[in-house]
């Protein structure tokens, strides 16, 4: 082992278990950021995570704290149930774009609208990863997927859903932001946003969501490096990074 101080290592909130994710899948980075934030806030022992149905379905193997697996799309309802009977716990959901923006549309809209005091990490990779790369609500116009073999035709298949923009319209939302993890600077900014989203809950300020643009090199049919670039060049223009709603109390958070 080298000398010197360890300045970067696995956070305690993350198990030392290899993930089942494909090489280069940025789900892994996002998991790590959550782990780091939970460590830094010292809330590992009071946190309850909700794993989605999607590639992150096994997240409970990787997170080192209590976890519940929700049915596809229902994580916000499960989180609501927990938080309402156990407000002393920190409750967050981790959801993909199929999970959150297709089948789970009603649940996320109403959790936001109720101002449910939970945190949502929303991983937008523009496809249904787990089931093999079908069109997601967030698939880009023209994007080829296994269920849009000639590319998403917005006139027939609908338009990519802008989750952050729509949820920012709900009165109950306290903090809504969009980030990505394709470059170190983005990773840092994403972590900060996730931290703010957890702090929002800790301060009892209501619903917080961070949409994270993520890659799926396997289903995009690219190398992991190409996938990063494709995301930067194609997804960010359509899904601009930034803060979509930050209520004053969140701005004032230390």
């Amino acid at each position: 082992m080298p000398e010197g101080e360890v300045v970067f290592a696995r956070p305690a909130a993350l198990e030392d278990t290899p993930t089942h994710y494909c090489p280069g899948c940025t789900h892994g980075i996002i998991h790590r950021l959550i782990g780091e934030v939970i460590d830094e806030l010292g809330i590992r022992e009071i946190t309850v995570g909700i794993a989605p149905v999607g590639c992150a379905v096994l997240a409970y193997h990787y997170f080192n704290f209590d976890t519940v697996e929700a049915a596809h799309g229902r994580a916000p309802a499960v989180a609501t149930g927990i938080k309402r009977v156990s407000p002393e716990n920190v409750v967050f959901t981790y959801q993909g774009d199929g999970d959150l923006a297709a089948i789970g549309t009603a649940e996320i809209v109403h959790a936001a609208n109720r101002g449910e005091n939970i945190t949502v990490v929303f991983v937008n990779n523009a496809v249904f990863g787990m089931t093999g790369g079908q069109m997601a609500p967030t698939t880009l116009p023209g994007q080829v997927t296994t269920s849009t073999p000639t590319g998403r035709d917005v006139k027939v298949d609908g338009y990519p859903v802008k989750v952050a923009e729509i949820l920012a319209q709900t009165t109950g939302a306290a903090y809504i932001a969009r980030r990505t993890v394709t470059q170190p600077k983005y990773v840092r900014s994403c972590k900060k946003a996730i931290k703010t989203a957890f702090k929002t809950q800790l301060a009892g300020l209501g619903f917080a969501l961070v949409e994270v643009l993520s890659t799926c090199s396997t289903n995009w049919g690219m190398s992991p490096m190409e996938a990063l670039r494709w995301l930067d060049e194609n997804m960010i223009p359509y899904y601009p990074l930034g803060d979509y709603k930050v209520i004053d109390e969140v701005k004032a958070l230390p």
Partner: protein
Amino acid sequence: MPTIVIDEDRCKGCQLCTTVCPKDLVTMAENFNAKGYHPAKLEDPEGECTGCTMCALMCPDVAITVYR
């Protein structure tokens, strides 16, 4: 002296750590690891690594530990 340690058997050979190193110290090895991937490796004969954590930030598999 700042450096990094790559857990070779944890590495999935995705290359995400390679392009972000400001000193270009991380490359892919020729050999296969136990999983059958070419792992990433640090080549830092001059001790240029600053421990900036850029590489580690990008690693989806938490295969990189950074020392400073």
